[in-house]
């Protein structure tokens, strides 16, 4: 993604209130030409509201939408603006017509000639592997087929901006993967700029040039995927990108970029910036924690080694998630094989270690509340 690419869509001081309650407050957000942005965040964080606002489908309390530098006015111009974009909602909302007629519907709204409609619809049906079911009723489609028709219907208009609101939810993994592949290929081929709302971290990382994390109607962070993943700016983003252990602490010592943070009476070695007395969050990914039956202090380069007690074990797909008590709570992932080999099912006590570089330190702020008495 080229940072110098022109801005297609820009939101300025956008505010949406419902029943007097603020549901969206976005001071600034832009989408560049050919850029792919993933919008992530918990349910109710305002992702869908943001997309609907961008599309001009929600009345905004304040702020403006700029398209190629010009404010989008209401009335007929709003319809013309919407016709440059396409929105794919979570539910396909197909019309009670054939697949062909569904895909053709947006083109017919634009008054495009019959021959051109046939040509474009045919091309997009093939692109989304729907050619054999053109005359099938949309009501007879499977979930995956309906999503494909929904995408074809949106993309057949060749929009400059594509907005996707969780378009792949409740699909089985192979179907989902196949549709994501087709979508990605189409978006890259056509150079369409897109914003995709997703709960799937892998999908966000794979598809996007930039990730925007939303929380409580606000943008918590907007950065390249690698930055969001490795350098979350606050505890919320950290937890959202998989740092399952987030600990309150105070920096005790700081020298040459190495920190010692006091957490619940224990000292954790970390790497980062900060001064003694700074209140911080120490964020640790579960996959960074190594478990041992014997104390590994003499044979590990990890700065942090703690005696731990298993408090709970839960399944997390291919892994087991262990909640540990090290004097502070710590979450670790362990493979099912390792769990069996280490005989963790019958052990209560073990050792947990993690490197200082595995601890992501986030300062709580700059005010007085972000300071504590040094250790």
């Amino acid at each position, binding site marked *: 993604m080229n940072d110098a690419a022109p801005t297609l869509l820009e939101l300025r001081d956008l505010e949406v209130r419902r029943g007097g309650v603020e549901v969206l407050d976005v001071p600034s957000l832009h989408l560049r030409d050919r850029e792919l942005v993933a919008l992530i965040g918990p349910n109710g964080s305002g992702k869908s509201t943001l997309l*609907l606002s961008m*599309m001009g*489908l929600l009345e905004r309390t304040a702020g403006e939408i700029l398209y190629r530098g010009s404010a989008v006015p209401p009335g007929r111009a709003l*319809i013309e603006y*919407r*016709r440059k*974009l*396409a*929105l794919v*909602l*979570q*539910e396909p*909302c197909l*019309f*009670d017509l054939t697949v062909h007629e569904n895909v053709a*519907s*947006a083109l017919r*709204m*634009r008054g495009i000639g019959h021959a051109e409609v046939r040509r474009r619809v045919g091309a997009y049906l093939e692109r989304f592997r729907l050619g054999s079911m053109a005359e099938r*009723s949309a*009501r*007879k489609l499977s979930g995956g087929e309906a999503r494909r028709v929904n995408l074809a*219907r*949106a993309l057949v*208009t060749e929009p400059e901006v594509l907005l996707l609101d969780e378009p792949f939810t409740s699909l089985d993994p192979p179907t989902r993967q196949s549709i994501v592949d087709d979508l990605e290929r189409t978006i890259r081929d056509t150079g369409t700029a897109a914003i995709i709302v997703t709960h799937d971290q892998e999908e966000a990382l794979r598809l996007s040039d930039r990730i925007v994390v939303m929380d409580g109607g606000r943008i918590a962070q907007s950065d390249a995927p690698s930055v969001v993943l490795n350098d979350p700016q606050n505890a919320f983003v950290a937890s959202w990108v998989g740092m399952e252990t987030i600990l309150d602490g105070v920096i005790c010592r700081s020298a040459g970029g190495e920190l010692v943070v006091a957490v619940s009476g224990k000292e954790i070695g970390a790497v980062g910036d900060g001064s003694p007395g700074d209140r911080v969050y120490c964020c640790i990914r579960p996959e960074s924690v190594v478990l041992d039956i014997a104390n590994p202090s003499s044979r590990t380069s990890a700065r942090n080694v703690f005696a731990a007690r298993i408090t709970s074990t839960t399944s997390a797909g291919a892994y087991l998630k262990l909640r540990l008590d090290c004097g502070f709570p710590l979450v670790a992932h362990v493979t099912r094989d390792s769990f069996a080999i280490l005989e963790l099912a019958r052990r209560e006590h073990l050792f947990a270690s993690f490197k200082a570089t595995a601890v992501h330190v986030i300062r709580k702020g700059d005010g007085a509340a972000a300071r504590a008495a040094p250790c």
Partner: protein
Amino acid sequence: MDLVAQGIWKALHLLVTLDREVIGITLLTFEVSASATAISLLLGIGIGVAIALNSFTGKRFVVSLVNTGMGLPPVVVGLFVSILLWRSGPLGSLGLLYTPTAIVIAQSIIATPIIMGITIGAIQSLAPALRLQILALGATRRQLVWILVREARLPLMAAVMAGFGGVVSEVGASIMVGGNIKGYTRVLTTATVMETGRGEFDVAIALSVILLLASLGANYVLTVIQQHERPR
């Protein structure tokens, strides 16, 4: 039972022999009721869609008024239309009382709330996201309404059936504003009432059977269209 059998036999006889008076009454019945249904469709669907799609103060009250109107007693409608069209009434100068037009007006007033009520329910029962999706596809307001009506066509077909059924079978309003004038405003229901009053039960039964058969035929056609459209 003899009376019923005799009535059915008489009905068949009247139909088979193409009795001019009965055929005339039957045709007028359908002409009047179909016209009233068509007017009610225009008004009921138009206003019903507008009510369903717009938010305004007092919407619930308006919807409850429409729902109440779905059970409007024909004699009450007949009374008010009579007063309106009475020689000295507000629309008396039009000279419409005791004409087929008067029956069409009264029947339209009866059918419109029925079709409007069903339309409001049908449009509101569509998925809320559908409206957003249609607008997101770039639809104008007119295209939005057209697509929503198209998507609700099955329940709207039921509205046509309910509206037509309501007016073709009513007698109170037709007799009050039409006057049951032979060869001019006499329809199947008013003729049936008259023949019953005269003790001509066989003719009354015959007319009822014709009304039932005709009504069944019309609804059968509408049902075939509806079932053909129904998702399988």
